[in-house]
């Protein structure tokens, strides 16, 4: 299909759509709160009222406030309702038509939780039906790809991404443009593009929501990347724990191939891009790029030393571009709205927005997208509403590779450098709030147990070191340890950090070191004298 046909398809879809819509959140949180039951009840109520031609009941992706699910939003009024029950359906249907009041509790969309957000990656999340290509097309879908193919050469695309200042959203924050340029410059004939959807950090579900709520956006970003670096084959590697994401991506790929925005001769040009989904099998280490590549090849997901970096020698020895889900999801908007527009958002060194999953002991749990540089206090206290009936003690970012930031430092802006300076990392975007009841030594032990289990066993510092650190932490928790044990723990932390092969081992000590740094008295009270 060419561009005109695609736009016509979008127009037809827009015209055929009933004026009123009831959008039901079908993301994981709402689904497990009986979202499906609510949707069915709403569909039945619409039918019962004879309004099928006027009101459409629609599945959409994440509506953000996961803790208050099931969420339902009405069009055209935009009113959102929380904790909806199937028996609320008739009242809600009456509200859509404007001649009804009451029903379930209405969500205050003027709350900072919503007003402080700046959706770029989540722009379509909750707005469109992720299983319908037409919906994505009505939201300017695949226009950025068209723009790239017809109005830019690959080098222009790389230059635009570089100028936007986008950095890897998987956690480390490597400049995306630089990575693309390295792969593009490589003379290799066969190149690959991989999307890292192995979101393993416990407490993080941003990538899941993006893949489930707006799968086409990720694919469009990958296609643009493939054009820029000269690849014709891509893989989306998704954890097996996310079956809905896998299903939606597969469906989206099929739809994209069907209309010629993916597959062979995209938009009638010689550019081909075939995408396949690869499913993980439950190994945290596969989030590390070289381990992920081994897993795509059907092997044990064990990392290997770098260099050579995947940009030179990756999948089957070919130059490979590997980026995170959220990184790719930023690309279509960057091309559509311009690199300079994007670079104007955020801080000097961290551009754009970041999606966080705000969870733990906080009043409003859910998904948020805020400009880089927003302070932790704004996120946790203003948007999250603080700890219900308590006080914030610490905020954990970066999962098992990150650290705990104490309440005193909540005024820190969220950007790559500031978080690293505090001994934590940006990470992929999990943000877990802990209150006064949380024992920080237990938290450190919890993460160490995680790293111990997930260590792939290839290098000794990580394989043996995590076990020893876990034992020492257990000894401390049981009040059996002395001062010497704490010292040894710190020494071990340094050793494992400096000598491990991959990011898993190198960052495994972070939760321990950061809790020792900020909450030393908690360790000391547990020591034997």
């Amino acid at each position, binding site marked *: 299909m060419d561009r005109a046909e695609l736009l016509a398809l979008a127009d037809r879809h827009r015209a055929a759509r009933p004026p009123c819509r009831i959008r039901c959140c079908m993301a*994981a*949180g709402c*689904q*497990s*709160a009986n979202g499906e039951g609510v949707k069915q009840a709403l569909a039945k109520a619409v039918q019962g009222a004879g309004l099928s031609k006027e009101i459409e009941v629609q599945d959409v992706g994440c509506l953000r406030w*996961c*803790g208050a*699910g099931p969420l339902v939003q009405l069009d055209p009024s935009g009113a959102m309702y929380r904790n909806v029950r199937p028996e609320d359906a008739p009242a809600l249907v009456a509200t859509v038509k404007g001649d009804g009041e009451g029903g379930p509790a209405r969500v205050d969309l003027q709350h900072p939780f919503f007003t402080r957000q700046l959706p770029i990656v989540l722009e379509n999340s909750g707005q469109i039906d992720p299983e319908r290509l037409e919906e994505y097309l009505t939201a300017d879908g695949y226009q950025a790809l068209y723009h790239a193919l017809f109005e830019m050469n690959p080098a222009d695309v790389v230059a635009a991404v570089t100028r936007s200042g986008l950095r890897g959203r998987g956690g480390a924050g490597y400049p995306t443009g630089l990575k693309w340029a390295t792969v593009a410059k490589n003379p290799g004939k066969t190149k690959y593009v991989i999307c890292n959807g192995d*979101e*393993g*950090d*416990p*407490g*993080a*579900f941003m990538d*899941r929501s993006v893949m489930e709520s707006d799968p086409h956006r990720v694919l469009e970003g990958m296609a643009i990347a493939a054009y820029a670096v000269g690849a014709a084959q891509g893989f989306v590697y998704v954890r*097996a*724990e*996310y079956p809905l994401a896998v299903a939606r991506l597969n469906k989206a790929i099929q739809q994209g191939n069907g209309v010629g925005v993916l597959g062979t001769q995209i938009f009638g040009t010689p550019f081909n891009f075939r995408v396949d989904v*690869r*499913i*993980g*099998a*439950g*190994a*945290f280490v596969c989030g590390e790029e070289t381990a992920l590549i081994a*897993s*795509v*090849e*059907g*092997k*044990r*997901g*064990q990392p290997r030393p770098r260099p050579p970096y995947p940009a030179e020698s990756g999948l089957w020895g070919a130059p490979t571009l590997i980026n995170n889900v959220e990184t790719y999801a930023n690309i279509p908007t960057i091309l559509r709205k311009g690199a300079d527009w994007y670079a104007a958002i955020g801080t000097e060194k961290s551009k754009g927005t970041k999606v966080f*999953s705000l*969870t*733990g*002991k906080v009043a409003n*749990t*859910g*998904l948020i997208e805020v400009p880089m540089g927003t302070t932790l206090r704004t996120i946790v206290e203003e948007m999250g509403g603080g700890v219900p009936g308590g006080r914030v003690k610490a905020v*954990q970012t970066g*999962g098992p590779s990150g650290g705990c930031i104490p309440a005193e430092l909540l005024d820190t802006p969220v950007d790559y450098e500031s978080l690293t300076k505090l001994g934590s990392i940006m990470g992929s975007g*999990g943000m*877990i*709030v*802990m209150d006064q009841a*949380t024992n920080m030594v237990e*938290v450190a032990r*919890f*993460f160490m147990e*995680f790293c111990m289990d*997930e260590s*792939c066993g290839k290098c000794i510092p990580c394989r043996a070191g995590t076990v020893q650190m876990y034992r020492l932490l257990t000894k401390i928790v049981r009040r059996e340890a002395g001062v010497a044990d704490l010292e040894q723990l710190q020494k071990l932390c340094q050793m494992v950090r400096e000598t491990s092969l991959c990011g898993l081992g190198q960052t495994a000590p972070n939760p321990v070191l950061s809790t020792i740094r900020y909450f030393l008295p908690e360790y000391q009270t547990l020591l034997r004298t």
Partner: protein
Amino acid sequence: MTATHPSGDKRFKVLDVTMKRHGFQQDALIEVLHKAQDLFGYLEMDVLLYVAHGLKLPPSRVYGVATFYHLFSLKPQGQHTCVVCMGTACFVKGASQLLEVLEGEAHVKAGETTPDKKLSVLTARCIGACGIAPAVVYDQIPAGHQTPETVMDHLKGWLTDGPR
């Protein structure tokens, strides 16, 4: 080409189709093992050897991959499964207490199956449902905001000597 398994078990035929769809490519091993586990419930040695033969891989490689990844099980599972999410958000909200209740009721440890093969108690690293923590997955269906009481409720009828 693989010939169907001598046992005549039709599930091997389905496995053949899967391997064929992947062109008997060795890099499809993980996909094939996923299918095998779907079909058989777990990966017994016979199935692993069959896959090794089909993809022309050394059995050591297939066994190595099957044991590396957490989601592959080399032991049969119970009739029902209960997966307690042990992600950070669930941990902070008391997932360990939920697991204690479960282990106590079922008289097995996490990762084990009751002797009557009725229930497997498992843990997950993070199921990505952090917004509704603590979460437990009962027979593939996730449930949020769990308490020891709701856990007991779900267990009704799943244990011979448990709550009814």
